[in-house]
Every structure is written in structure tokens, then in C-alpha cells.
């Protein structure tokens, strides 16, 4: 299946290569570079590139292209999903996934890749298993290893690999037993000129951090499970139980994992927590335009909106902007024409606004479209859909764990057309 993997940085250097079958010359990447040139922007490089003898499937993350070389028919999503899993694993191992980090840990990277694929077919992709086979590098462990001469490589097959719960390590022990769940909801919306909603939907995830001793069996129930329209589970969740009782029942992996992602049914009206008032005009006669935006809270259920950032891609004809914000800081990059305004918290008594003038290129025609405004924000302790966790129970172990649940709402792809 997957023949080889090349890691390419943003300046076009191949800084790592790994082959699972016979060696494929790195000149195969020339086809990739060609496509990259044609695409101009990194995110426009096609994920699938055919070459005379191979196919190049790539993902782009953390400014690195992960290019897999394959030779025969294979479902493209299989490869793409796997590459993403590789990136996730690196992130899990090293905290960040960047070129210097990968270069520093090249041996661990190589050992991990070796375990993840055999003959191009995934062998072990669960991070709990991988970490037992190859321990992530930490400072302490490096010191211990140099003194005692022990190694980072486990010499036993992780028991998880053979058990019916392959995602969980065995023999987990903690002095403090804790289970935390974060319910994070994102609002995707498109708001039109007049402020009415064109489309809005809520996507949510429940991320968990479970540090529990032994083999706990958890159940998580909701007050209002009907809200969830479409869900996807971590493999640990028992599907039948969800089907029949709408209860999440699972033996959790050890550590951080995403338990559930869901989509809130479209029938429910989505409360839009912020509004943007805008007045943007580019005038023809003078080469000056007016620019004014105000952000205010709408349906926030009494919570404060934080971390508001407004970004907007200005048309090419814009030379510069002289703006003054009532709060926060703003920047305008005259090269990329990107305006960004870090607002911070919204105080309902004193709405933040950004006003000023836009200077346009003299002689050039007036831009015919007003820019789209992208919004980011955060609301703590609120799940905008109203989803509520009812209770979390543990079976199978005797101790009393500490349980915590946190709610948060964020802007996903939130756009205001002007």
C-alpha cells in the first residue's frame, strides 16, 4: 500500500524519507514540486498527484508536506487518514510537530514509523500501544538511560495489541484518579450583509483526559441526548448501548483522547452570540474609503464573550488603512492585505469598534466587492446548543475518581459578508 514517505518543508527540502518496500528515488518528488509551483498556495496543492509510475498523496500540516508514495490502487482516504494519524502521533510524542523537532528526534521518529506500518499496511496506530513499544523521549528518561543503559524500546508485545481493548494500556496506576471531559462546541455560520443568518450549524466534540487506575468502565449520560443528530465515536464506545439507551458506555484509553464528535440537528435554531455592524465603502472620486465595524453581543445567555479576533482580507486595490480601535490592537499587512484586530473581551456597556479610512491605489478601479469578515471568539462555561451532561459513573474499579466537566463555545468558520 504505502510505499514510501517523504517529509518536505515549506522551502522545498526533503528532510526525511522512509521506505517500507523497495527504495523509491526521491526524484519522484519533482512531480510534487511541479504541482506545488502551479498551485501557488500551499493549501491549493492537490492531495492526489498522478505520476507515470507512482501516485503521490499528500497532506499539509504544520507547514510540512507529508507525501506518501503509492504504486497501486488504494482508497485515497485510507492514505490521507493514515498520514494525519502520523502527524497526530508525532504531536503526541513531541508536543509539537515541526521540522526542527522531527530532525532532533529522528531516531524515535524512525522507530515509530517502523512500528506504524509493515509493508505499507498499518500495524499499530493507537498511541497507547505505540508508547509501550517506543517510549516518548523525556529529559528524565534520557538521563536514566545513560546511567542504567536501558533503552527506549520495549521488548514485550504490548498487551493491548492482543486484547479486546487495544486502545488501553494495562497496569495503569495513578495516585490521583481523575477524569475530565471538555464539551467544546463550534458555531459555523455565514451571516449576510443585512445581518440575517444564511447558514448556521453547531458541531461539537467531547475531549477527554482520563487518568484512572486499572480497567475502569465508564458511562456518560446526557440530559438531552436528542440534540445530537449525528455522532462519531472513538472505537472504545459501545455502539449498541448508544443505539438503545443513548448512553455512552466505554472503557477509556489512558490519557487524552476524543471521545465523541457530534453535529446538532439542523431543526434547532442556532443562537448567534455576536453581531457585527459594518460600514465599509470604497469611494471612486477620492482615493479614500471609509471603514467602520462594531462588534456586539447578541444571544450570549448572560456569559461574556472573550478572545474576539476579527480578520478580513482586503481587496488588492487597498494600499493602507489608518484605523483607530476603541479597544484592543490591530494590524494591517500591506503585502498580504490582511487586516486583523485583536479585540479581547466584549463589554456590553461599551461596544468595541474600529474606525478609520482606507487609502486606495490611485488610478486603479474601485474594488467591486466588500471584504468578508471572519470572526473568532470564545465563551466559557456555555454549550450553545444547550447540551448537558447528566452524570458520569464508573464501574469495574473500587476507588472514587475525581470527575470534572467543562463547557465551552467557540467560533468555527464564522463569516460575515459585507
Amino acid at each position, binding site marked *: 500500500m504505502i510505499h514510501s514517505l517523504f517529509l518536505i518543508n515549506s522551502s522545498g527540502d526533503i*528532510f*526525511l524519507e*522512509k521506505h517500507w518496500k523497495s*527504495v523509491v528515488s526521491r526524484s519522484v518528488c519533482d512531480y510534487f514540486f511541479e504541482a506545488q509551483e502551479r498551485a501557488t*498556495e500551499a493549501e491549493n496543492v*492537490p*492531495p492526489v498527484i498522478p505520476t507515470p509510475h507512482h*501516485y503521490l498523496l499528500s*497532506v*499539509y500540516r504544520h507547514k510540512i508536506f507529508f507525501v506518501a508514495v*503509492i*504504486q*497501486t*490502487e*488504494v*482508497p*485515497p*482516504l*485510507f492514505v*490521507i*487518514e493514515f498520514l*494525519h494519524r502520523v502527524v497526530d502521533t508525532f504531536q503526541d510524542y513531541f508536543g509539537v510537530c515541526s521540522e526542527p523537532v522531527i530532525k532532533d528526534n*529522528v*531516531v524515535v*521518529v*524512525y*522507530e515509530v514509523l517502523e512500528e506504524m506500518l509493515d*509493508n505499507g499496511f498499518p500495524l499499530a496506530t493507537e498511541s497507547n500501544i505505540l508508547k509501550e513499544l517506543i517510549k516518548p523521549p523525556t529529559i528524565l528518561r534520557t538521563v536514566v538511560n545513560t546511567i542504567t*543503559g536501558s*533503552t527506549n524500546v520495549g*521488548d*514485550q*508485545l504490548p*498487551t493491548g*495489541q*492482543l*486484547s*479486546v*481493548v487495544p486502545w488501553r494500556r*494495562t497496569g495503569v496506576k495513578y495516585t490521583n484518579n481523575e477524569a475530565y471531559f471538555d464539551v467544546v462546541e463550534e458555531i459555523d455560520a455565514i451571516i449576510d450583509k443585512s445581518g440575517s443568518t*444564511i*447558514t448556521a*450549524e453547531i*458541531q461539537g466534540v467531547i475531549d477527554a483526559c482520563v487518568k484512572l487506575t486499572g480497567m475502569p468502565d465508564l458511562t456518560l449520560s446526557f440530559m438531552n441526548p436528542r440534540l445530537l443528530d*449525528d455522532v*462519531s*465515536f472513538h*472505537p*472504545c*464506545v*459501545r455502539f449498541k448501548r448508544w*443505539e438503545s439507551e443513548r448512553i455512552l458506555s466505554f*472503557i477509556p484509553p489512558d490519557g487524552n483522547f476524543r471521545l465523541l464528535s457530534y*453535529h446538532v440537528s439542523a431543526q434547532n435554531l442556532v443562537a448567534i452570540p455576536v453581531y457585527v455592524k459594518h460600514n465599509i465603502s470604497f469611494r471612486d472620486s477620492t482615493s479614500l474609503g471609509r471603514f467602520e465595524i462594531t462588534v456586539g453581543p447578541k444571544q450570549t445567555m448572560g456569559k461574556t464573550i472573550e478572545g474576539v479576533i476579527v480578520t478580513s*482580507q482586503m481587496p*488588492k486595490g487597498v494600499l493602507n488603512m489608518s484605523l483607530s480601535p476603541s479597544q484592543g490592537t490591530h494590524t494591517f499587512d500591506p503585502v498580504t492585505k490582511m487586516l486583523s484586530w485583536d479585540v479581547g473581551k466584549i463589554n456590553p456597556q461599551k461596544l468595541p469598534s474600529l474606525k478609520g479610512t482606507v487609502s486606495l491605489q490611485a488610478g486603479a*478601479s474601485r474594488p467591486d*466587492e466588500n*471584504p468578508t469578515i471572519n470572526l473568532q471568539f470564545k465563551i466559557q462555561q456555555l454549550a450553545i446548543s444547550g447540551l448537558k451532561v447528566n452524570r458520569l459513573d464508573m464501574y469495574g474499579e473500587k476507588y472514587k475518581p475525581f470527575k470534572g466537566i467543562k463547557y465551552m463555545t467557540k467560533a468555527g468558520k464564522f*463569516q460575515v459578508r459585507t
Partner: protein
Amino acid sequence: MSSNSFAYNEQSGGGEATELGQEATSTISPSGAFGLFSSDLKKNEDLKQMLESNKDSAKLDAMKRIVGMIAKGKNASELFPAVVKNVASKNIEIKKLVYVYLVRYAEEQQDLALLSISTFQRALKDPNQLIRASALRVLSSIRVPIIVPIMMLAIKEAAADLSPYVRKNAAHAIQKLYSLDPEQKEMLIEVIEKLLKDKSILVAGSVVMAFEEVCPDRIDLIHKNYRKLCNLLVDVEEWGQVVIIHMLTRYARTQFVSPWREDDGLEDNEKSFYDSDDEQKEKTDKRKKPYTMDPDHRLLIRNTKPLLQSRNAAVVMAVAQLYWHISPKSEAGIISKSLVRLLRSNREVQYIVLQNIATMSIQRKGMFEPYLKSFYVRSTDPTMIKTLKLEILTNLANEANISTLLREFQTYVKSQDKQFAAATIQTIGRCATNISEVTDTCLSGLVCLLSNRDEIVVAESVVVIKKLLQMQPAQHGEIIKHMAKLLDSITVPVARASILWLIGENCERVPKIAPDVLRKMAKSFTSEDDLVKLQILNLGAKLYLTNSKQTKLLTQYILNLGKYDQNYDIRDRTRFIRQLIVPNEKSGALSKYAKKIFLAQKPAPLLESPFKDRDHFQLGTLSHTLNAKAAGYLELSNWPEVAPDPSVRNVEVIDLAKEWTPAGKAKNENPTKKFYSESEEEEDSSDSSSDSGSESGSESGEEDEEGDSSEDSSEDSSSEPESESGHQSDTENRRAAKRNSKTKGKGDSKDGKKENEKSKTSDSSNAESSSVEESSSDSESESESESESESRKVTKEKEKKAKQDRNRLATDASLLDLDDFNPVSTPVALPTPALSPSLIADLEGLNLSTSSSVISPLRT
């Protein structure tokens, strides 16, 4: 690391240092160009010395640096002799890194690689399954043709290994050997056949992968394993699921008859009529003569459904394509929600999923109509995503939603991404042709765009308007006049050519303007683009034929210009037109028909989706994405007219059981007995088991197998660790056995339920279910006897037991009861950390290999 190298350098004097150095100079890779030439040479010398030192830490450092070189693509092949010596190192990390090195370079240095073979052969017999597995992995990965027989032997042995992990690796090795030496195909198929019967979830995905690669046409090997694969599917790891689902899709298309009614969609009102006389779930898929779905077909569709909830996009897509290709059309609707969910994922996933949705949305619009708004374009999407979304929106457009869509398109046209704006205009054109109600609205909208300030937008509009006008040429003189005026300002060649063509076609409708346009064009002829020149020639010819009084001289002037043009196409065209339209003595019969030829009624172009012809590829495949057949693409066959014999899928369970239990264990033992059995008591317990055997009346294959295998496991486990500690191994024994029977009991009851759900046509299912009852009743009696001390055998055992043992057993037995009667499972007992881990692992392996059709308690 590199700072250490000097220190190590002094430790061991390298005898061959000079020789090596010379080798090194010749092999330094070009990519190392930035490093100093001499320092590179020295480094390799260092490495060699480090490898020959007797300190593990030095060797490890050297290996790490070598792996670093390999990763960067530098050549490290001259170190081969020094590295290969360390293949037998005791240090597992060094060993692993040597393996990495070997796999990379063995192909280049075949003779030297042979030195390592004996080490692997020894490792293949290692008691640690991880070492056995990795030895097999490396042995099969070094592509040296001479060792093919050794590999074959190793694979055969590994395929019968007790550890499912080793068997999984054997499945992978099959593919490697096949690519190294295709001549081994026949032998390998035998191994595949054997491994296909494996019941471990660990092996299933890998062996199906091997099957797909080596012998995808041997569909007959699947028959007997079909039901097992369907039932195991939920518990197989994600990657295996994808492969199995794709294979089963192909299988289903060859073995079952089509569930699609030919006149699908027309007979909706008849549904209720047929509903009543069919108790099966397939309500809607009947033809004139009632169609009943093969229960195996149904099994596959039912068992894949939960996987739509997978977090893995590849699995979701695989299920989606399965539903698309083999489920009744009325049931395929459930996949759209899951596919739309994937659109929240990364750009690459979106790209593939959108492509597949685009193909689906052409054939079955209704499926995605409710999700129309999910395909609205955001300004932050990459261009390729935008165009795909646009494509889907076009496919979904209909009378009901077109007005909303057109409003949405208006925003897109104004986008700063001009490529996308142009694509939107084409889309509007396609909507206008597909939906006649809005043709006029679209046309006027497009005409408005003609005054847009952006040239690309205008040009695209002109081209689209041209196509639209061609379809209904009668009216629209005004638009043509408007476009004629545009000729002064617009510079994009395609647009200019389009306008000229339009005027030429409609020259009789705009008799005043057309000659004037020709006049202007004659003036600028020499500076025009080739494309425009050709259209000027055409316009001239058409006007000459219809209005020769005004345009005769102009046309001749243009023809003269064309005669000496640089481009031969234009010279050719000029010559051709002159002969055709200008009457002279030589001109033949054709010139009479010149007018008919030039001003013939031309068919309007069809505006079609670029995804129209992709549906002959299986969805979700690489070939579909590329719209070209990729190497190794397996065609999806058409439904057979008559279903092949379904009985081939019936399984004689006994066969399977014998397959995996090593020979010489003919004794028939009740699995529950294992609670008490100790190696010395084998006589005894087998006695009592024969009793219970006759009690239960019917002999079933399933039980046979369990009896055999659990006995096996007990023996194995007792023989292995006995040297270590007598007492411990005893208790381990018991625990392992408990686990065994426990999982079995649970699984059985579950199996039984499944079987009962199924229609009871097949013999095997009957046999199985009976065995289930039996075993469960056994375990019941066990627990009863535990409390009431009724049964003879149990009391006898009891006497031998210490009291604390009994207590523990009692709780265990009750646990087992719970398991049997509670379909919602409690977690399976896992080995306690007090036991030696390798033993646990091995026991665990045994457990799975023998009792595995059942290991699904968790995710079902």
C-alpha cells in the same frame, strides 16, 4: 551525539580504517554536499570504530547516527559489514536499529545480508512473540531472492503460530514474498486460505489485504469465511475494516442478485401494497415478482451500518461506497449525513469526500438535497474545495431551490478569487440550461455582469451567454447588440472570438451592426490573437454570403491578409474559405451549398458535469479520484442475473476447529471443567467430562473445538513456565482457564443470539445455537453447584481445593453468570500485573486464537 565521537574514536583502533576511507569517498551522497568532504569521510570511520567497540552505548550511538543518515537520504551502505555483525546484539534497541538498516540496504548487498539469516531463523523460534514477529518482519523485508525458500518456510510456520500477532505478521509477509517472487503464488494461496479461516480480529484485516494483493480473483476462498468476516467486522481495527469492506463489496456484487428495482422511484405508491406480505426488513426493494434479499446480503448491510459512526474517515467512506453499490436504493440515504459530517475534517479529506459526493449527486439528487447549505462556499476555503462545492450545488439545483442558489451565486461572482468567480459564472450557465424556468433570469443576470469591471468575469460571461443564446436564438437581438459594443473594450481572446461568432451566426438579425463590426475587425486583424482571426474569417465568410453588397470588398481584404498570415491554420482556413465562397471557374459543386454549409443550424452545446463519466469507477477508490484506471484497480462486476448457490457460505464448524488445534488432542472435554483442572488431574477431569458429554446429548462442533483448545492452552501454559515457579504457574493456569471459559461463555451467548436472529435455514447455525444452549446451561449448573454442592464432579474437585481458592472461584462463577445473561457486557478480565507479562501475552494470544469468533463483547 556527535561530540562523543572523538572519545570513541580512541577506544578502538580500526585496522581497516584506511581501506574504509577509500570506500567512503566513492559513496558519499550528493546531498551531503554542504558538509565538508573530509569530515564526512572521517565520520564514517568513527562510526565503524564505534560499531566494533564492545560497549553497547557506543554501538547504539553509532546506529542512531546511521539511522539519521538513512532518514536524510544519505548513503550509508559502506557500513554494511560493520552493522550486520551487530544483528545478534542482546540490546533490543540496537537490534531494532540494525533491522532498520538491513531492510534498507540488504537488497544492495545481498551476499553480506545472507550472514544475518541464521540469526533470524533462531529468532523465529524465540519464546517472545514480539521477537518472533519482528524477526519474520525483517526476514521477509530483505528482498534477497536466494532466501525465498527460507521465507516460504518461515511464513508457513508463522501462519500456524499460536500468537495472533505473529500470524498477522505472516499475512503481511505473504505480500512481501509475492512481490519478490510471484512464482510462489500457488503455495502462498494455500497459506492465505488457511489464514482466512483464522478467527482472530487481529489477523482478519491483514489476510484480506494479502488476498486482495495476491489472488483477488479467487472469490471462492471467501465463501466459507463470509459470515465470519461480516460478524467480526465491527471489532477489527480500523484499517482492516476498510480493506475488508472493499473486498466484501466486490464479493457481494458477484454473489447476490440486484436489490435495485429497474423502475426505481416510479413505484413509490406500491410500497405499502407489498409491505404487508413480507416480514423481512427489506420493504421497498421488490420487483414485480417479490424480491427477497439473501440473508447474507442483509447481514453485510446490517453489520456495516454502525461503522458509519467511525472516527476514521476512510472507514466511513468505505461503508458509504458499500451502501451505494450494494444496498437497496431506498436505504442508501443514511450515508449522506455521515459524508456531510466528514466535510468538517481536513482539507484533504474534504477534497476526496466532495469528489465522491459530486458523483453521487448526479445520479441521486435527493440524497444530498437536505444538506444543500452545507455546500455553501466560504471565502476561506481553498480554491479546489470551492470549485467542488460549486459543482455539487449545480447538481443539486432544481426548481424549488434555484432562487436561493442564484442569490448565493451572486455573492460568489463578486469573490476576490477570480478563478472561482469565473467558475461560478459557468455554473450559472449550467443552471440556466438545466432549469428552463430560470433561463431568462440567468441570462439577464449574466448580461449585467458584462458591465463588470473585471475582465475575467466579463469574458467568462460572454462565453456562457454565447452558449445560452445558441440554444434559443430567436429573441435576444438586444443582447447581441450590447455584446457588439463590448468588442471595443474587451481584450480576452476567447470572449472576442465568442462575440464574433455570435454576430456571424445572427448576422441576419443584426444587419446594420454586423458589417460595421467586420469593418472594425479588418482594421485590427493583424494584431488579433489567432483564435480571434479565425472567427473574423468566419464572420467575413458569413457576411459575404448573406450581404455581399456591403461586405464583398471587406471580406476580400481580410482574406488577403489571412493568406499571408504567419500561422498555417489561418492560411489554410483562408484558402478553404476563398475556394468555397468566391465563385470562380474552378470551383466545384460545393460552392453552391456554401451558404448551407456556413449557416447551418448548429446543435447547442451540452453543459455537463465533469463528474458525469466517473460513475463507472467504484466510489472511494483512487481511480475514481483520478478519473483514470490506476494500476491494480479491480472492476466492480455487474449484478448476476441469477444468484450463485448461496449454500457455499454454509460453514461446517468442526472443520475450522480442527484446523487450529494441533493434532493429537482427541479428548473431548467440557470447557467449564477447566476451572479446576490441573495438569496432574487430566485423567480425572476428562473422565468427568465424558460424563457431561453424554448428559448433554448432542455433540456439537463448537464445543469440540473449545474443549480441545482450552485444554491445549492449559498444557502449553503449564509446560512453559514450570521451570520458573511451580505454584505461580498453577494459579496462572487456573486464571487463564477461567478467562478462557469466561470469554467463551459470553461470546457464545452472544453468538447464539445472533444466530437466532438469523433465519434458521442453514444447518450450521442450528448446530451452533444448540451448542450455545448447551454450554450456557453447563456454566449455569456450575454456579449452582458451587453454592448447593449438588453435582458429583464439583464436590470431588472441591475436596482438593484450598478454601480461599473456593471463595474466589465462587465470585468468579457468579461473574460468569452475569456475563452469560447480561447482553451488555462488563469488561473482560485482563491479566493482573503480578504475572509475568510475556506469559500473559502468550496466554492472551491463545485465548484469542481459539475463542475468537466471540471477541466482540465490547463494541457491539
